[in-house]
């Protein structure tokens, strides 16, 4: 029973992280019709920004020091850490804006596939810098609660689980609020029909920029929370959050449908549920299934779902015309 409760909480926490990252994909896809394969590199770069904020006194290549960085040898307190997190998110967002401006904007109107491959190129081009920066040992992101846990009736809950759920709730709340704001309405109009939106006087370029900025910031958020203690990275940005884990979110958005925000919540919880439960309850078959089998469970679920529903559970079926 205790195992079951712990497994459920773990699945919910992982599902929240998947949902944040899935939200990043969906925002970018809805706003700009780009499937962002560069999310892995962007999120790892974002986690590195966080690590620079927390662990270094200054910024690389810039002359001035970071005024709110914790003193050397100390970890940041809760409030200060959150401010640093916000700054890291802003830096991640700026990275997204730059990438959009440099690589995506010139491609407006090109086929979807060409845009998707551009992001693959970005991923390959950014990745060496990330891997170079984390070097071998990894860089700390200074989580204030570290590896602390709560113990309730024998069941153990790491504090990071709650943090991930809160982060997901906040980001979804923000996105739902954003969709009702002026920019959000513009974004939905652009997603619906770019040309018609342009004709109504919507600045499509600005919508692109906002979508990429928000998407990159959300990817950063997801990577930071995935780098915390109960997950394999254990508090440092290292090769453990090598972008391969980001591809496990592709089943999440496929399941939810590429363009559905609500679908991401269900998709994230469902995929994480399958992954965590398979990891917990099939563990005794590891000899047959091979080590690390739980990481491919998402893909298997995705294959089965797509056989039945080719546009995912919540996606809009494409209307095909001659």
């Amino acid at each position: 029973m205790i195992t079951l409760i712990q497994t459920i909480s773990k699945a919910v926490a992982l599902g929240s992280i998947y949902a944040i990252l899935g939200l990043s994909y969906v925002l970018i896809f809805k706003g700009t019709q780009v499937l962002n394969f560069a999310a892995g590199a962007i999120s790892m770069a974002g986690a590195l920004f966080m690590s620079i904020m927390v662990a270094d006194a200054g910024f690389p290549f810039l002359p001035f020091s970071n005024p709110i960085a914790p003193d050397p040898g100390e970890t940041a307190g809760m409030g200060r850490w959150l401010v640093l997190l916000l700054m890291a998110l802003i830096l991640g967002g700026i990275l997204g804006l730059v990438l959009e401006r440099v690589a995506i904007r010139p491609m407006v109107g090109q086929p979807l596939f060409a845009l998707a491959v551009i992001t693959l190129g970005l991923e390959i081009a950014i990745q060496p810098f990330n891997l170079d920066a984390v070097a071998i040992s990894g860089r700390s992101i200074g989580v204030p609660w570290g590896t602390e846990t709560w113990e309730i009736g024998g069941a153990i809950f790491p504090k990071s689980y709650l943090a991930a759920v809160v982060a997901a709730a906040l980001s979804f709340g923000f996105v739902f609020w954003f969709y009702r704001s002026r920019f959000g309405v513009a974004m939905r109009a652009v997603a619906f029909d770019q040309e018609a939106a342009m004709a109504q006087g919507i600045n499509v370029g600005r919508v692109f920029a906002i979508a990429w900025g928000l998407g990159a910031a959300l990817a950063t958020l997801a990577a930071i929370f995935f780098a915390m203690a109960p997950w394999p990275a254990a508090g440092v940005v290292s090769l453990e959050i090598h972008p391969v884990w980001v591809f496990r979110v592709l089943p999440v958005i496929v399941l939810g449908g590429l363009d559905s925000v609500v679908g991401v919540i269900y998709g994230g919880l469902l995929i994480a549920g399958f992954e965590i439960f398979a990891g917990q309850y099939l563990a005794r078959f590891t000899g047959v299934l091979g080590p690390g089998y739980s990481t491919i469970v998402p893909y298997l679920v995705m294959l089965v779902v797509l056989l039945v529903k080719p546009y995912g559970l919540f996606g809009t079926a494409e209307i095909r015309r001659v």
Partner: protein
Amino acid sequence: MSFGRPLLRTSYNQDASIFPTVLQKGLAIGFVLFLSAMALDLPVFGDIPRFFLGNTWLDPVGLTLCFAIAALGLNILVGVTGQVSLGHAFFMGTGAYTAVMLGGNVGNEESWKACVPFHDNLGLLDQQGECGLGLPIWIWLPASALVAAMIGVLVSPAAVKVRGLYLAIVTIGLVFIGLHLGRMLPEIAGDFESGRKWPRLDIRLWKGDPVVEMTEDGKWFGFLELSEEQKQFFFLLAMVLLMTWLAKNLVRSRTGRALQAIRDRDVAAEVMGVPEFKYKRIGFAISSAYAGLAGALFASFTGRVSPVDFGLLLSVDFIAILLIGGAGTIAGTLMGTVFVELLPKSVEKGTAWLSGNLDAGGLLGGIANFLLTSGSAGDFGPVSISATAPGWPMSVFQWNFVIYGVLIVVFLIFEPLGLFGIWLKVRNYWKGWPFSY
């Protein structure tokens, strides 16, 4: 046949042939002869690749030839049928592991027990590398294509239903499942990181001595004195020519036209009486067969391939080849392969050459000082030539990845038709020269 006007086409048959004009035929034959002359190390010809790729240039070129076959296969799926697949590496792996099961070394009774999957909890790792049937190449090479095609048909129910980006995502899933299978079945795949022994490229009738041996220096057919690499180069070149010919003929056939109809507009193709799912499945199977063949050749040629090599990056390689070369055209695919696969090696060679000029002074020495750093204090420059410490000045190896990614982006933004498009522009410019049109 009109020699006076080399571009004139006088009949439909001529227009539909592979080389419509004498000029094109002559160029193609001349190019193959040129390649052969380089490989035979004739006086001037042999120096050309040596300048760009170093003395061991036959290794990267052989690899390029293997990849060219796989790229031709992906071109049939992506360029001709219009289905974007990122799962090509999975099918290459399928082919490679079929080859190693059929053509690998024969073990004894004991090691055969280790060949049965799941025989125990991964306890017999020392026995790996010895399970295979030891069959000759004329069995395992076609079989690797066949098995890969069968797996392609097997997964096609999921692949033909989904469209566009959904298909790309599904095929990414395939790559990760394949990687896991490699980790799950060490009995077949060998160690996940270091791999296992691969069958050799010798052509034999049965299990006896090779008829045409390709793994030792020596005489070929009794008179041609060749090194091991040269023999393999000619074998792979022959395979590439054969597969190019098949691909070219496929595109000109009824099947090829059906595939192109689906690429241009699937609903319209269906209305015209082209069964969409059937032809998508055929496209998938043919592309997988190419991939399987290429995977078997790639693994046997390099000899040290492990499951981890058949990852997503390999699939992206082929997508990049198609985009940089020009999707949908066979000449473009081949150009793209040569460009993408040989560029890293030339960059390495160029850096080594530049580092030799560090103290030369003048412009060259200035450039070398600006770009390179040996890691000592006060020395700046983005490229590190001391291979020891990780950290900011990155090694040539890492810069190659950056260049590769940037190239994909740049080509897509500025030249969507790829190298083939550039070639068309150059050709049309010179056709009308000195007039602009």
